[in-house]
C-alpha cells in the first residue's frame, strides 16, 4: 500500500491561507490504513485548524470535511461535485496520486496537498511502516529470495553487498538491515545461493519512462449496451 505522512500544521495553514472556504478531503483507502488522511484524520485536522485559527485570530476559514472511498479513482469523484462547487480550495489528504486526480477532475479549483507521500510499504507493527517496493518495473524478487535490493539497499545495487555493510547493518544507519546480508541468509536457507553468484547486468531504466502507463490486455466488457 501507499504510505504517507501528514504535513506539519503550520505548512498546511500556509497552503490554505489565501482561501476562505476549504474542503478537507480524506481518502478511504491507503491514507486511511496508514493514518495520514482517512475520515478520522480529516476530522482531527479540521479541529486542529479551527483551534489554530481561533488562537491566531487573523484568519477566517470555513471548513467542510468529507472522505471519499478512493481519490485516485474518477468513479468515486462525481459525488463531490456539489461540495466542490461551494468551496474556494480543496485540501486533499489523498496521496500524490489522489491530489492529481482531484485536480484533473475539478480543473477550476485549486487542490492543495495535505500529506507528503512517502513510499509503498508494509506495516511492520502497529504504527510502523517499512518501504518494500520501488515500482522499478522489472521485478527481480525471484532471484533475491523475496527481498528487494533496489528498495532495501540504500544504493540499490544488484551484485552483492558494498563494503559498508557492518554486522549485518547498513553504512548509513545501524537501524537499517543490510539488504544483501538478508538476501544472502535467505538464499542460503532456500539452498539457492547460486542465484547470488550470478551476474546481474545494469538495470534497464527504460522500464520506467516517466510518466508510465499500463493498458490492460484483458478483454474488458464495459457492458455499455445493456445500460
Amino acid at each position, binding site marked *: 500500500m501507499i504510505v504517507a505522512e501528514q504535513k506539519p500544521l503550520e505548512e498546511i495553514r500556509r497552503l490554505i491561507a489565501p482561501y476562505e472556504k476549504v474542503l478537507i478531503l480524506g481518502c478511504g483507502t491507503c491514507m486511511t490504513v496508514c493514518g495520514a488522511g482517512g475520515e478520522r484524520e480529516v476530522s482531527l485536522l479540521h479541529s486542529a485548524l479551527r483551534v489554530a485559527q481561533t488562537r491566531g485570530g487573523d484568519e477566517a476559514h470555513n471548513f467542510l470535511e468529507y472522505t471519499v472511498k478512493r481519490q485516485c479513482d474518477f468513479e468515486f469523484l462525481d459525488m463531490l461535485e456539489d461540495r466542490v462547487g461551494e468551496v474556494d480550495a480543496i485540501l486533499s489528504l489523498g496521496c500524490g496520486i489522489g491530489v492529481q486526480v482531484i485536480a484533473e477532475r475539478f480543473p477550476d479549483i485549486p487542490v492543495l496537498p495535505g500529506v507528503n507521500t512517502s513510499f509503498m510499504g508494509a506495516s511492520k507493527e502497529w504504527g510502523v511502516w517499512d518501504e518494500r517496493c520501488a515500482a522499478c518495473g522489472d521485478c527481480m524478487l525471484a532471484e533475491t529470495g523475496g527481498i528487494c535490493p533496489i528498495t532495501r539497499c540504500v544504493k540499490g*545495487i544488484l551484485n*552483492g553487498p558494498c563494503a559498508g555493510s557492518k554486522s549485518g547493518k547498513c553504512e548509513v544507519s545501524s537501524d537499517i538491515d543490510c539488504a*544483501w*546480508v538478508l538476501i544472502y541468509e535467505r538464499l542460503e536457507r532456500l539452498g539457492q545461493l547460486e542465484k547470488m553468484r550470478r*551476474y546481474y547486468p545494469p538495470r534497464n531504466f527504460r522500464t520506467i519512462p516517466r510518466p508510465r502507463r499500463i493498458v490492460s490486455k484483458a478483454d474488458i466488457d464495459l457492458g455499455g449496451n445493456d445500460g
Partner: protein
Amino acid sequence: MAKSLFEERLNSGKFLVTTEIGPPKGTDISEMVHHIELLKDKVDAINVTDHQSSVMRFPSLGGCLLVREHGGEPVFQMTTRDRNRLALQADLLLAYSRGIRNVLCLTGDSVDVGDHKEAKPVFDLDSVQLLRMIRIMESGKDLAGNDLKGAPEFCIGASVHPATDSIEPQLIKFDKKVEAGAQFFQTQGVYDLDCLRRFMQYASQFNVKILAGIIVLASARMAQYMNDNVPGIVVPQAVIDELAGAEKGKGLQKGIEIAVRLMKMIKDENLCHGVHIMAVGREGIVPEILEAAGVGIGAHV
C-alpha cells in the same frame, strides 16, 4: 604488452606499495602537487580518491592528470555514486586519452555519509558492472553496443573487505569482481592479520594481486570515530587500546608504528602481493612509513 606501468609492476613479483592522495576541497592544488612530488618515485602507483566519504572535492580524474603531469603512475578511483553510465564512459575515454591507464572500480560510499546529504544518489551501475563495462569498452563497443572510434585499455582493480563480520556475502562479490576482470584488489583497512591470512587462503586460488589496505591512525579517538562513521572501517579494540596507551601527543607516532609493524609482518610472511597505504589527509608522513617498513620503490633493489 602491459597496459600500464602499474600492470607491469603487478606482474613483476615484487612486493608492491601503493598509496592514495585525497584531492583538496577547492582550487588550491599546491598541497596535492607537493604530495605527488613527494611520493611519485617512492610508490608503485598513486590512487586519487573520488569524493572520498562522499565529501565533494576536486575530482579524481583531475588529480590523476596532475599525477601524470608530474611523472607519477596514477590509479583513477572511480565510483558509481555520482555519474550515470554515460558520464562514467565519457570520463574513462578522457582518462585513457590523457594517459591514465589504471582504474579502481568502486561503488562508492552512500551520499548520506557525506557533506551533500541532499544530493541525488546515482548508482546507475555497481562496482561489478563498472568493471564489466570497462572490458566491454576495451572490445571497441560502448555499453549500448555502439562502435567506439578508438577503444581504451585499462588495468582494472576493485576493493574487497577481508575483515568484515559477514565475510561470505563479501566473498561472493569478490568472485564476481574477479570474473568481471579485476586484476588487482586494494583491500579495506586491515589490522587483524588472521583475517588477512584466511582471506588469502581463499583469494590465492585466483590470478589476481591483493594489496592489503593500511590505514594510518593518529589517535584512539580517530579510530573510534572511523569505526562509528566511516563505511568499511573496522578497527579492533586491541588497536584502539594500543593507541590510547600512547603518551600524550604521540598518538600519530603510535599509529605509524602500528602501520609499519603490520606492513613488515605482511611483507616478511609474504602474506599478499603488497600494501596500499591510506594516510587519510596525512600524505606527508608516507615516505617516513615506507622507510621504516623497508618497502617502496627505493627498497625493491
